[in-house]
């Protein structure tokens, strides 16, 4: 190399490297040798790293590396640690009745957090990720409860489900289809009366007749005041919440051929402690009693 750069720059008196671009020559102000060694050191480091750690991609996986490091193993270990850290609380939840859990703020908070994540996995498909439900799927945030809204009752509902074939303790109720028992006009009149409890029906003249029909046909389940009955899961018809849709048409439809939602029982799927978590979480959403 040395013999190549003999040209000396006129102005600075510094030798050039011999490289020339369009008449411009690069002065040879040498970079320090340690700089080059540092560069070599990074290469050596890279080789060492490639041997010690997973690096070279193969067809289905990569080379393992001598140290046997794997980010997946790290995550697994972290998860195991997290599980171990939760063990104490989880055991206490498993062994305590739900009232005791509710009375212990720390345990309750733990149950709410655990319930929130179990809810996302198991319940959100029907009730929505915010537990706000939808038509035919109850909103769990409000204070309207078909089967009761204290933690114990909620636990019972979640554990054994509603109209669920796979569980003998499941909650059962069935509204008869009134298509065979009432004429369409009578059903319309009944719907007008039900609506009149919270709003103004389209034809107020029908309300008087509907009231009579309601007392004869519906009051046995929904109550004389139409406020429903939790014994049989009969909804409150005198409040602002409509599970199967709002308005006279929706009420008439439900009378003619009732739709019944089914909820599976969860205790056999997720186990008793998780159902406790879920019950306490649902109770905490704001409508719990």
């Amino acid at each position, binding site marked *: 190399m040395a013999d190549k750069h003999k040209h*000396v720059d006129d102005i600075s008196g510094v030798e050039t490297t011999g490289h020339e671009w369009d008449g411009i020559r690069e002065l040879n102000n*040498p970079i*320090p*040798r340690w700089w080059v060694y540092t560069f070599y050191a990074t290469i050596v480091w890279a080789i060492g790293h490639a041997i010690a750690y997973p690096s070279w991609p193969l067809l289905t996986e990569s080379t393992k590396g001598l140290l046997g490091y794997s980010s997946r193993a790290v995550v697994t270990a972290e998860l195991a640690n997290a599980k171990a850290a939760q063990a104490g609380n989880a055991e206490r939840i498993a062994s305590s009745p739900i009232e005791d859990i509710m009375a212990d703020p720390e345990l309750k908070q733990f149950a709410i957090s655990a319930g929130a994540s179990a809810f996302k996995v198991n319940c959100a498909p029907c009730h*929505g990720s915010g*537990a706000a439900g939808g038509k035919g799927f109850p909103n769990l945030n*409000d204070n*309207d409860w078909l089967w009761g809204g204290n933690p114990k009752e909620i636990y019972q509902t979640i554990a054994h489900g509603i109209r669920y074939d796979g569980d003998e303790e499941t909650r059962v109720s069935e509204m008869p289809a009134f298509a065979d028992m009432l004429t369409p006009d009578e059903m319309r009149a009944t719907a007008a009366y039900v609506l009149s409890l919270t709003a103004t029906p389209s034809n107020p003249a029908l309300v008087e007749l509907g009231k009579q029909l309601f007392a004869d046909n519906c009051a046995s389940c929904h109550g004389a005041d139409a406020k429903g009955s939790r014994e049989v899961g009969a909804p409150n018809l005198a*409040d602002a919440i409509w599970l199967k849709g709002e308005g006279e048409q929706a009420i008439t439809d439900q009378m003619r051929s009732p739709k019944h939602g089914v909820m599976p029982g969860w205790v056999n799927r997720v186990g008793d402690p998780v159902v406790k978590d879920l019950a306490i979480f649902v109770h905490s959403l704001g409508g719990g009693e």
Partner: protein
Amino acid sequence: MHYQPAQKAGSMERLEARPISAARVGRPLYEKRRKIFPKRAEGRFRRFKWLVMLVTLSIYYLTPWIRWDRSAHAPDQAVLVDLAARRFYFFFIEIWPQEFFFVAGLLVMAGFGLFLVTSAVGRAWCGYACPQTVWVDLFLVVERFIEGDRLARMRLDAGSWTFDKVCKRFAKHAIWLVIGVATGGAWIFYFADAPTLMKSFVALEAEPVAYMTVATLTATTYLFGGLMREQVCTYMCPWPRIQAAMLDENSLVVTYNDWRGERRTRHAKRAAALGEVVGDCVDCNACVAVCPMGIDIRDGQQLECITCALCIDACDGVMDKLGRERGLISYATLSDYSANMALATNNGAIPIDPRRVRDGNGVFVEGIRDFDWRIIFRRRVILYFGIWALVGLGMLYALVSRDRLELNVLHDRNPQYVVESDGSVRNGYVLKLLNMIPEPRRITLSLDGMPSARVRIAGQAPGDGQSFSVAVDPDKVTSFKIFVTLPKESLVEAQSGFSFRAEDPSSHERDVYRTKFIQPGTAK
């Protein structure tokens, strides 16, 4: 090794000192570092540098040990970066992560401060205050103490590995490493309670990260201060490049005044006897020998020069001995220098003629320009100072007017509202109360703008409906879920939103957060 014993030039000791930048041709593409053996300098700049070194090193090593009483709920260390709790303490100031802009502001000020200093007095940062300069100085003190001054060190370095040399080298490197450990050690004390950490560190019970940090900083201190020295300034640091761009013809730089120095000669008396005209420089190389960067300032202003002014001290000493005026090497601006050069060379028409700058009595002629302090107050300096001061004042204002009680409100996203069975509408919020003082407090929270609304904390019985009071921990964020319910007939109240008001009843500190209330038909 390139050195020869001292010779005598008249009465002047002459040093054989070859600057590292001397070679221009025949250099390889990658070059071995040339060893530099800076000689001890004496003079006013050296004294000033000792002072700066004392002050800066004291600040660095001692600051973590200053105590500052805050309260039982906060650390009593004056300067502390508490990474785990995400707090930064600086005497009476406590900074939370969201107030990090204060630190950003300080960095902006540091940046403009450097611009300011550089445009006013040149590379003063490099020469006096940069940690690299200060620590190299410290390491050189050790080196001189053990191995002696320049000549002795050169001899030792060139000599064979005798027992004496091994001992000296061992002692030197050992002390350097101790300084390195102390430097790294001081650093970690900024991040934890210093006395506690000191105890656990010595007992080998501190966190591994503490030992790793100390080890890393020991290594860098030893490497940069002891082994690499001028290489760091010349090759690794970007700052010299940036500063070079900030110098103009009125910036102070260390300058060899060749208009009075040339023609330099080692044989001034002989030349005078022969009637030759020579300059003040006796070519004693004292300036090269003291230079920590190993350069010759007489080659002109160069990238390597950190303007430590040690060559000024060295040359002033020589001029004193020769009975000439000081300032052959001096802080000068390019414009003064050029004017004087023009005078000495008759505007470049002739080579430097020292007779043109002195009258018959050897006194400088009228036209010789000296440094005028007023040149510092020029437009760019004032501008930099203005920006620097503005940022500082802005931060000061932000500091004295900042809140120590803050309320943040997050509206529930899913569901956005809930209709209750009586037709009333409920909205959920997460309230975050930031109590930024190290004292526990009771804070009253109230609704403003929805008189019919009722508020309750989740999981608790409703209070009076419009307000409630909560206990907040010292120096912490307390967050809790609340529900606000508006009766069906009053939903119109929610149209223009409402506010949460947090107030400390004892100090009347307060924060207000405006938010909205979502109901069927307004949800998005």
